[in-house]
């Protein structure tokens, strides 16, 4: 690359600053839009992967009138007799809406004497001394919950409002650091009896039942057996979820990308139509040609100019997207992937920036831009050198 030509191209961009800035900003915004969607999707995907890996092999939910209801705890025993099942356990969990702060907490009931159904929960309470808290109403909260409570002047306890309107004072016994999303910073761990009170789940009923199967090959078979045994349940396997989420992300990302590309292409066709070379630019090129610039040198100059604009705009777009997705939490875009909210309502998008994604965004945008400038560049470069003599 000839450094003089590069300098000249940079100066030329500056001389037509208005036009270049306009095109560059539109292009940057388009890149930002695409990058925001793909970054959000990739971020959600990594969150889902983490969440899924922590998920039980099979989850059994009871359906009542098409919606999820409470399930009988004693079904655990029947399920455990199915060959291949390692264990089955009831779970008591749900959401609590904290009106003052406008946030949802996830309440998870735990039997603090038994190993929990999830390794990560065990990790959260490993350093917790249960003996001092026996027979008291206590909770262990994620960092996000602690922050919210402190902001609302709750330092040592919190007053839950029960379904019947009464207050329930629960002491804050400790905090844990967020690991995975399921047990993320909005989670509150409570003794299971307390959770039942708060969630209005009577003894003998549970939110759902989780099942562990030793051999992954047998999961599908066990799932079929469970749904035969209890036709009123929905049986969800981990692979179902993994597959459907993978497809969801690829599909939605892909769908969006194709729409986006169509939009981008039409933008450039419009650009191509409107932005032939201005008169001043034509004259400038004629002069260069008369002074001994080759056609290829003029084309190189023009491609360099647009390449610099495109690349700068691309970088700008990526930065805008990073800010939008990871600092502002991608308002509006998360909704595109709303299928996710069933699994998990509120959480922070984890920062996942992978280079191949940035490369992909580059490939999906910049070549279109370059293709759109080649024809005007050629038309300009083949201006007859003797035109400036007339």
């Amino acid at each position: 690359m000839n450094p003089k030509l590069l300098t000249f191209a940079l100066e030329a961009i500056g001389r037509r600053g208005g036009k270049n800035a306009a095109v560059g900003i539109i292009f940057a915004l388009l890149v930002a839009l695409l990058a925001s969607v793909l970054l959000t999707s990739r971020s959600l995907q990594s969150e889902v992967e983490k969440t899924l890996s922590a998920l039980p092999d099979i989850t059994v939910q009871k359906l009542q009138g098409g919606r999820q209801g409470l399930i009988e705890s004693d079904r655990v025993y029947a399920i455990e007799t199915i060959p291949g099942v390692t264990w089955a356990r009831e779970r008591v969990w749900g959401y609590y809406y904290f009106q003052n702060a406008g946030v949802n907490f996830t309440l998870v009931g735990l039997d603090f004497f038994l190993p929990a159904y999830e390794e990560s929960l065990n990790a959260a309470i490993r350093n917790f001394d249960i003996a001092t808290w026996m027979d008291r109403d206590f909770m262990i909260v994620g960092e996000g919950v602690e922050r919210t409570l402190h902001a609302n002047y709750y330092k040592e306890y919190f007053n839950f409002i029960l379904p019947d309107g009464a207050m329930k004072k629960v002491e804050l016994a400790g905090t844990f650091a967020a690991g995975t999303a399921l047990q993320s910073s909005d989670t509150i761990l409570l003794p299971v009896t307390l959770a039942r009170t708060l969630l209005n789940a009577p003894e003998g009923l549970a939110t759902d039942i989780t099942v562990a199967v030793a051999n992954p090959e047998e999961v599908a078979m066990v799932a079929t057996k469970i749904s035969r045994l209890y036709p009123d349940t929905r049986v969800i396997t981990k692979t179902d979820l993994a597959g459907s989420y993978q497809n969801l992300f690829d599909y939605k990302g892909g769908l969006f990308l194709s729409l986006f590309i169509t939009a981008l292409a039409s933008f450039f066709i419009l650009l191509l139509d409107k932005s032939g070379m201005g008169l001043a630019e034509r004259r400038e090129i004629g002069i260069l040609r008369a002074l001994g610039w080759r056609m290829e040198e003029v084309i190189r100059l023009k491609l360099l100019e647009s390449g610099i604009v495109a690349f700068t705009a691309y970088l700008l777009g990526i930065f805008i997207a990073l800010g939008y997705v990871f600092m502002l939490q991608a308002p509006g875009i998360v909704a595109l992937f709303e299928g996710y909210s069933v699994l998990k309502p509120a959480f922070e998008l984890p920062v996942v920036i992978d280079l191949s994604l940035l490369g992909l965004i580059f490939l999906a945008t910049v070549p279109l831009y370059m293709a759109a400038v080649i024809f005007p560049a050629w038309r300009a470069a083949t201006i007859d050198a003797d035109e400036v003599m007339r």
Partner: protein
Amino acid sequence: MIRLTNVSKIYPLSGADSVTALENVSLSIREGELVVLKGISGSGKSTLLALIAAMTKPTSGDVVVAGRSVAKLPDRFASDFRRNTIGMIFQKFNLLGDLSAIDNVTLPLIPTHESASDIKERAYRILKSLGVKKRLGSLAKHLSGGEQQRVAIARALVGDPAIILADEPTASLDRKLTLDFVEMLKTMKQSGKTIVIATHDPLFFDLGIVDRVIEIDGGRLA
């Protein structure tokens, strides 16, 4: 140095019409000669210069400049030839108004492999020798007519060409600046350059330094 043999140039117009800008022109110009091309507007002077500079190609005939047949060169070679052998001065100067004086002068050499500081240095030397010492960094559009003219001449000279072609160089200059230009012509001639000036300014027709006046009329040599 320059030899045209039976050169014709026909510009096609829309439909079957066409304009014959030059018809069967043969002429030859020796090295170091200063020749004035005289002719009324539309007689084909600019076309002749453009052919010598390999900016356009003849419809028939051959153009040999500095030992090379430039009539059929593909663009890459024609452009290099123009950059290395020809210095052009235009009627309207054709400076880029938004570039500084010095940047206008270095313009032809930007795609070459010479370093930026080398060509700046050269441009500076030439501008100084032409009497432009101040305002080298001002935008060309803010320069006076005389300064613009000198910048345009400096740009023609910066590649150290053997041939200088000037197309009505004084048409937009007043008397004093025209005389200045004649002075500069003298210096160029002394440095051994072959010079062709297309003009209808009578001042040039009986100037001491002019070796020959070639008259052109309706595309033919008179």
